[in-house]
């Protein structure tokens, strides 16, 4: 049942091609996850700030954006990007671009909510003090509010990053050669589903579990001061 040989034989393909993205195919779980996390977080910051804007014409589109993407499955968003991006951009888009766009757009809605909650957790007096010292609205956001908000957000941010990391496996449905797709490819040849899928489950688990341990450590070290 547990044929470890099959994993050993295919380890370079699974780990180098599937996990890291080094090889003949466009792929790699990490190569997709890292830019998705960074870009999704950047877009999330803007959406979180926009959700709190005093002007309704900034606040409302951001609210609609968040509510829309939180009500739709990620698989659906991936298909949207896959079919619509080539139509709109009038050129074919590689799987990597489609998957990256889908993840950034989708996760930014969730990350935006976290950023909003983080900003709201900063006492109002901080903004007032910053403005009283002569900082502009943008400056007080950048130098006073966001640094404190970020500290409060870290636990939920890392949780969301873990979710995003797991979600990257869905890129395999449009043919992106990530860890899941690599296991599928190997399984098609070897027909050893049990050890193969268990192996990639463990690889994903090691990554996500260490991320969540790190989050717990940060939570304890930074703590509510």
């Amino acid at each position, binding site marked *: *049942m547990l044929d470890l040989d099959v994993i050993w034989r295919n380890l370079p393909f699974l780990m180098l091609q599937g996990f890291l993205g080094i090889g003949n195919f466009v792929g790699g779980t990490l190569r997709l996850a890292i830019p998705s996390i960074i870009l999704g977080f950047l877009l999330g910051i803007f959406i979180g700030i926009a959700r709190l804007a005093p002007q309704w014409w900034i606040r409302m589109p951001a609210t609609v954006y968040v509510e*829309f993407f*939180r*009500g*739709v*499955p*990620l*698989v*659906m968003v991936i*298909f*949207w990007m*896959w*079919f*619509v991006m*080539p*139509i709109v951009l*009038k*050129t*074919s*888009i*590689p*799987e990597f671009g489609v998957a990256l766009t889908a993840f950034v757009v989708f996760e930014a809605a969730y990350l935006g909510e976290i950023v909003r909650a983080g900003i709201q957790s900063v006492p109002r007096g901080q903004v007032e003090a910053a403005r009283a010292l002569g900082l502009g609205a943008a400056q007080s956001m950048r130098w006073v509010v966001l640094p404190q908000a970020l500290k409060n957000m870290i636990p939920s941010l890392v949780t969301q990053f*873990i979710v995003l990391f*797991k*979600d*990257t*496996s*869905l890129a*395999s*449905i*449009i*043919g992106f050669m990530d860890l*899941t797709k690599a*296991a*599928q490819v190997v*399984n098609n040849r070897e027909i050893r*589903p*049990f050890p*193969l*899928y*268990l192996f*990639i*489950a463990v690889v*994903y*688990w090691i990554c*996500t*579990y260490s991320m*969540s341990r790190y989050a717990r450590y940060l939570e304890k070290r930074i703590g509510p001061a």
Partner: protein
Amino acid sequence: MRGPRGGGTRRVNYQFRWSVLWTGESGQWLLSGLITTLELSAVAWLIAIILGIASGSLRTVRFWPLRTVATFYVEFFRNVPLLVWMFFWYFAVPPLLPDGVQQWLFANGLEFWAAVCALGVYSGARFSEVLRSGIQSIPRTQLEASVASGLTTFQAYRYVILPVALRIIIPPGTNESLNLLKNSSVALTISVAELTFQTRQIETYTAKAIEALTAGTLIYLVLCVSLASIMSWVERRTAIPGLIVGGRQRR
């Protein structure tokens, strides 16, 4: 799967034809997809709730072996992508089952039951975390008082802790239930004919991607919004005056 790639660059402008949604078999497909999505989600939800209540409670008991088993279940199943679990339950588990069970599964839609198991067990681990935080928000003295008045630990959980904890977690539990509903779309990878699968089918037959995706997306949005409002009604109906508010304020 077939996609817009491979055909080189398409410079033709997209022609909308919304009528594909109500001509031909599209309506039937969407309806059957919707029903499958609801069935899949409902059965998986039941499994998830049972597993979640059991493991979430066990994670808060004093007896460490039970706590360890529950922690292992939650941490392992929650931290691996649902897609991997779909493949695992669909490809890897059936060969290990006895022949009779295998035959029954092949005759009764293996992919549906594999998806139910994958979604139920995965979401159970997530529900477990929600319930655990609910239980932990109830003061420990409640349990101590129940045990002191002669209840066993099981009875204390059944009659004192869980009725309050389950009410406290209705809002985050609703969130998790909606996640379950949305996650059921991953079942299309093992060819369960649920809503996203049928949306793709319409696209395959009519080559009208935007129309098909719009229909599917709207159905998901309506489902999510209506479920959320039903749950907020349930929350109001089941509220114990004073108690829940007290439970929230303590945090």
